[in-house]
């Protein structure tokens, strides 16, 4: 059974003329890693809000079409049940800090307390997650006094600790430096290895290319392109709707334009090197 099914879904916020989502049809399968890219305002976050059930339960407005989560219509789900099922890390780290806990350790534990997890398990899960996100030297700190980057790690840790099968992650590295970004992405890879269903919204296209199995390109509320990563990211048409192509793919197209096509448009450095070497071997140039 598909994890999430969208059938001709359209949504308009109250008191607006333009629809935020227009006729989206897509199926998210369990255990797969999806990337969502596109220009700002294109509907990526709205899509996340929809899958997470915030549309229609929190964001009133007109929703048409069917959204099925685990086979059940989203309108029949209770929001609190969805929050126990789908983890959501979203963009703004500042509002994700609860403001009701005085140490980082307790902050990360909050979700587990709400889920009724026994104390000993809370302690071990929080400890593990803090190690994974390298915030162990912050555990006694006041979460409200952290920097943006630190808050983002703590927010990520808090959702990670809840160990959900499905996760929606919306730009989790916006406040992080390259090293922090790498840390977060290695954890996302861990989640992938655990066969969780992941939907990742990111602008860092090279990292998306590295980890995602399928890509959705959102533009102006529509699903402009979708499909396996290679197919979508190698397609120069995505640039017309504001999405970026990985550098390697740009390089691949340049090679093609120069009359020296590679076997496939590479989407990351490793592939680029591999294909170039393969070409050299085969053609000698």
């Amino acid at each position: 059974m598909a994890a999430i099914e969208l059938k001709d879904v359209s949504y308009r916020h109250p008191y607006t003329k333009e629809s935020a989502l227009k006729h989206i049809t897509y199926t998210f399968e369990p255990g797969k890693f999806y990337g969502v890219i596109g220009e700002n305002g294109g509907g990526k976050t709205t899509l996340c809000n929809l899958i997470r059930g915030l549309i229609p339960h929190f964001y009133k407005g007109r929703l048409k079409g069917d959204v099925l989560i685990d086979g059940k219509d989203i309108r029949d789900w209770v929001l609190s049940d969805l929050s126990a099922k789908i983890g959501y890390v979203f963009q703004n780290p500042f509002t994700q800090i609860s403001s009701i806990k005085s140490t980082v350790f307790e902050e990360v534990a909050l979700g587990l307390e709400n889920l009724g997890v026994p104390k000993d398990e809370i302690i071990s899960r929080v400890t593990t997650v803090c190690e994974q996100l390298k915030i162990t030297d912050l555990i006694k700190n006041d979460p409200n006094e952290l920097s943006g980057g630190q808050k983002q790690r703590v927010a990520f840790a808090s959702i990670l600790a809840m160990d959900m099968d499905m996760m929606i992650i919306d730009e989790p590295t916006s406040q992080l430096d390259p090293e922090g970004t790498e840390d977060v992405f290695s954890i996302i890879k861990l989640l992938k290895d655990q066969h969780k269903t992941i939907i990742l919204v990111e602008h860092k296209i090279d990292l998306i290319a590295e980890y995602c199995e399928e890509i959705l390109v959102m533009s102006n509320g529509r699903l402009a392109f979708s499909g396996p990563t290679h197919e979508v990211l190698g397609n120069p048409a995505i640039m017309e709707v504001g999405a970026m192509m990985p550098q390697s793919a740009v390089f691949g197209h340049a090679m093609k334009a120069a009359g020296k096509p590679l076997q496939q448009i590479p989407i990351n450095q490793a592939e680029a090197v591999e294909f170039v070497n393969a070409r050299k071997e085969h053609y000698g140039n």
Partner: protein
Amino acid sequence: MDTTFIESFKSYQKTGNFWLDLNPLTKLSICSAFAMSALFMMDWRYGIPLSILCCIVVALAGKFKEFFQIYGKLSIILIVFIMIVRQLGTRPENVTPLINVFGWQWYTESFKAAWDTASFILGFSGAFLVYFITTPMRDLMYTLEQKGVSHETSYIMLAAMQNIVDLRKAATTILDSQKSRGIETEGNIIVRAKAFFPTLGPLLLSAFTGSEEKLIAMDARAFSVKGNHTFLRELEPITPKENILIFLAWAIALATLLSKIIPAVMRAVTK
């Protein structure tokens, strides 16, 4: 990794100090009882010793400095004001001269009345202040949740306190930067009142609309999930010894009430 810190969650939270480690509801009960007793007595001979007792308890709990910063200020302003206000104007009950302050005649009756009122307020305030200085709000909220109060209430109290800190900081930053840019924070009252709005409007608005994201964030932490919550940080439930203390405190409060009611009833009856 600070393992002692993590291990500390496995047992009840304790500081080692007798008063501080009492259950928050115990402390609340005791302090309320004494505050009420100050109200019932309305007498400087009770109020003043009570204030001193408050100072002693707080000192034994190691929080005297924070306590006195507030209590000291409060006391001085209160006493001075009430003294002066009570001596102003002609009052028929003033017959016994007390002292003459630069030609201004002070009377004993007003003096005593002032002290009675002042010491009630001091005793009342002192008792509650002792409570708040020695009990973190999150501990009180924890005990209330154990008694069945919803965690939404907890959220409101704790989030409000943090929001106050955050909003204050943000407001100060804005006002400081506006000052340096020369916006009219000096000048007459109308000018200053006008300066109030554009400086802080955007701040207040973004605080407002930020509550939407807060709702989503807390929902992502399963805040609205029904069913029993567990607690990482636990406090010891009220012990029988503590119940005795609570009983004693309220017995004292009752005694003070009766000490006022019984004579009044006797007087009414024998008239």
